[in-house]
């Protein structure tokens, strides 16, 4: 069953995509502004993340308590989140509440007031979250890997910022960021649910059509990140922890890269298929060392990482890293088998209906399609694009992106050989 989204770009530049889905009497709303931590001013890291926490805490016509009471009274859910390049609202409500909930979404996007009290309280929450991450071997390993891998590139910075940078953030920082970054041009709103598509479209047009266009923002260009020239390995001791986390990564590619689809198939065969692809076969299934081991490919407006992750006993860290090295090297030298690539392609192409099972799943897919300009029939074309990837292209992607001699490897956890906690 192909998607049949309606798409309209309002006069002020807001792109609206709606899709009917009558499985349940509920609606999912997703909005996205093309801004995020990437646009945090220097020394003010964490601005977008804090803004997301305060955006819906009061507008020029609604107090934070009024918004909370209204949404909670309907059982509606609304969250704002900021990533590196995208800041947006996700809301879920019953169909009967769609128009009033959408009004709150639009109001928060356009007219937030960032009350001083809430800025202070939410700043404290983020500081607590950063402290929690400092105690979590998985976060410690991944954050350090980003720092080592990206060096002076903006991707080395954390979306949440640091305790120092977050504690410096003031209300004015949020006001300025909002004025500069939140504009209708390029804003995307996706609505999926059990209502008439025309009704959903006109409701969004009503809520956001008179958002003054202002001046558009210059197109984003994320600089290249230089690939590592040598291997880098860091061990971080966290003596009271029960096991270690390994993050093993490389600078990857952009979503617009011609090799994206081949890299996706490669990633699936390397560390996704069934229980973690080749890596899962070796480290979990054959050696019994890890509950989780997998790879990921983060291709966005800029070159996000290709990353391998595993959680293992401290005494098995060296063996795990050696096993990852061996699997990566084997793929570089001998390639994948035809069967591996055929299986990964079949899986990726066949999993689309499942991705589109829920309102939120459909909304996320349509947002991604709009975000990267993939075209309204992308759900129809995607299986063909996946099937067109050859084994040679997948192997070439592996050779291009992965190389143990240039890997950035971080392990965080109890020291090897230490007695258990």
């Amino acid at each position, binding site marked *: 069953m192909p998607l049949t989204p309606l798409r309209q770009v309002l006069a002020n530049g807001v792109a609206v995509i709606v899709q009917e889905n009558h499985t349940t009497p509920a609606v999912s709303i997703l909005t996205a502004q093309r801004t995020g931590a990437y646009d945090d001013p220097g020394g003010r890291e964490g601005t977008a993340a804090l803004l997301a926490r305060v955006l819906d805490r009061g507008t020029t016509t609604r107090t934070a308590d009024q918004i909370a009471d209204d949404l909670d009274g309907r059982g509606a859910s609304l969250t704002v989140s900021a990533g590196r390049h995208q800041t947006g609202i996700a809301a879920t409500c019953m169909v009967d509440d769609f128009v009033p909930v959408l009004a709150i979404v639009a109001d928060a996007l356009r007219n937030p007031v960032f009350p001083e009290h809430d800025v202070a309280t939410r700043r404290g929450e983020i500081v607590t979250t950063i402290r929690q991450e400092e105690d979590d071997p998985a976060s410690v390993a991944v954050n350090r890997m980003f720092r080592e891998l990206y060096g002076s590139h903006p991707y080395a910075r954390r979306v949440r910022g640091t305790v120092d940078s977050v504690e410096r953030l003031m209300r004015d920082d949020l006001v300025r960021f909002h004025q500069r970054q939140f504009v209708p041009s390029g804003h995307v709103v996706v609505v999926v649910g059990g209502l008439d598509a025309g009704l959903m479209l006109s409701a969004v047009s009503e809520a956001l059509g008179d958002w003054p266009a202002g001046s558009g923002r210059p197109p984003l260009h994320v600089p290249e990140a230089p690939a590592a020239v040598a291997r880098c390995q860091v061990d971080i001791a966290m003596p*009271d*922890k029960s096991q270690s986390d390994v993050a093993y990564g490389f600078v990857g590619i952009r979503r617009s890269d011609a090799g994206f689809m081949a890299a996706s198939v490669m990633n699936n065969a390397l560390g996704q298929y069934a229980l973690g692809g080749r890596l899962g076969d070796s480290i979990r*299934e054959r050696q019994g060392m890890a509950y989780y081991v997998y790879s990921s490919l983060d291709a966005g407006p800029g070159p996000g990482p290709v990353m391998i992750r595993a959680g293992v006993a401290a005494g098995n860290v060296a063996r795990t890293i050696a096993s990852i090295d061996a699997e990566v090297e084997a793929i570089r030298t001998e390639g994948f088998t035809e069967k591996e690539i055929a299986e990964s392609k079949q899986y990726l192409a066949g*999993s689309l209906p499942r991705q589109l*099972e829920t309102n939120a799943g459909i909304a996320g897919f349509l947002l991604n399609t709009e975000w990267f300009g993939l075209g309204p029939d992308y759900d129809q074309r995607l299986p063909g694009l996946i099937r067109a990837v050859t084994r040679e292209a997948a192997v070439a992607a592996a050779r291009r992106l992965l190389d143990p001699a240039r890997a950035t490897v971080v392990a965080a956890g109890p020291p090897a050989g230490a007695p258990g906690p």
Partner: protein
Amino acid sequence: MQGAGVREATLDNGLTVLVQEAHTAPLASVWCWYRVGSRDEGPGLTGVSHWVEHMNFKGTTNIPRDRVKGIIEQFGGSWNGYTWIDQTTYLETATTEALDRMLFIEAERMDRCLYDPGECESERTVIISELQGGENDPEQLLDMEVTAAAFKVHPYRHPTIGWQSDVETMTREDLYGHYRRFYTPSNATLVIVGDVDTDDVLRRVDREFGPIPAMPVPGRRRFVEPPQQAERRVTLRKEGTTAYWKAAFHAPAFGDRGFFPLLVADAVLSGAAGLNIWSAGRVPRPQRSARLYRALVDTGLASSVGGSLMPTAQPFLYSVSATVAEGQSLAAVEDAVLGELERLSRDGITPGELEKARAQLRARFVFDMDGVTDIAHQLGYFETIGSWRDARDLEGRLAAVGIADVHEAARYTFAASNRTLGWFEPRVGTCR
């Protein structure tokens, strides 16, 4: 038997089958449920149900070990399983053309798993890795300690993954014995929801599962936790950066009269969370106007706070957890939470709060059924703790709750002698 679009059938060998057609997407979800969980485990064998679940992905008579993966993936499908205190379940969701393969896998799993000794050993270390990964999270550690302290008798006290000392010593025979005892048709419920024809599905089910021989229904030992007489406290001190607070109160089972009143109390305290433990958290709970959020998070005492009431077969726990904000104290968080619980016990809730809680819970029951996987989960889950019909009467039980019921549930549940309080006090690290 039929009700609300669900067809129930029972095979000659005792297997209960539930089918519901849902034609909005070309998908089918198959879940096979067993009435066995960590509450069925005795001393020395904690974690056996969960380990058995892992072994039941490791090959069968007709699915060689190296052919396990790929069967569902070839249809773009996903598969998984979980074990909890009352139940163990396995699922596949894929395009409808995979239906026969999904049924075949579940029939094999019910009767013909291999338990190769080498595979059992290899999985032991995988499970220890899973267990230790959980221990890296101070909140999970605190939860384990508080739960263990809250029960004296009932096996709900031990973690589903088991104590590490048991996982280290259990044998292949322990695992296989547990499997043979509990994996019988009459102890299972097979649920199929999706773009299917019910009569056709029942024919296919009969073909795959009909030949499995009937076996006696395994008895489940029943334990009654004696009433708690005094407040209990645990304090966990480990290296860390953040303090965590938790309270657990003995709470009604899903079938008990007091369950829905306490569910409403939870919605008033921390926003309704729904009753689907598979999709929990996918739609964040509406909690900004909830009492605990306003008393703890809006005041900066805690960075998060939330209550939890799970639907269980026997009386389990209602818990409240809070993350202490940087610079704040466990004592202040405890005072604030207990103050709110005492206020609720003393004064009850307002008609406006009851109305809001009902609206929230009604919406959650809709969000809980978002897609074929969730619908199938809810049918099977409630069948393992009572009856699948309960999943169809949530609104009815909710509508029957009055203000006095909530007040009574709060008074009973939040009595000081019914609580176990847990502190995680971080020690400043020596090395980073």
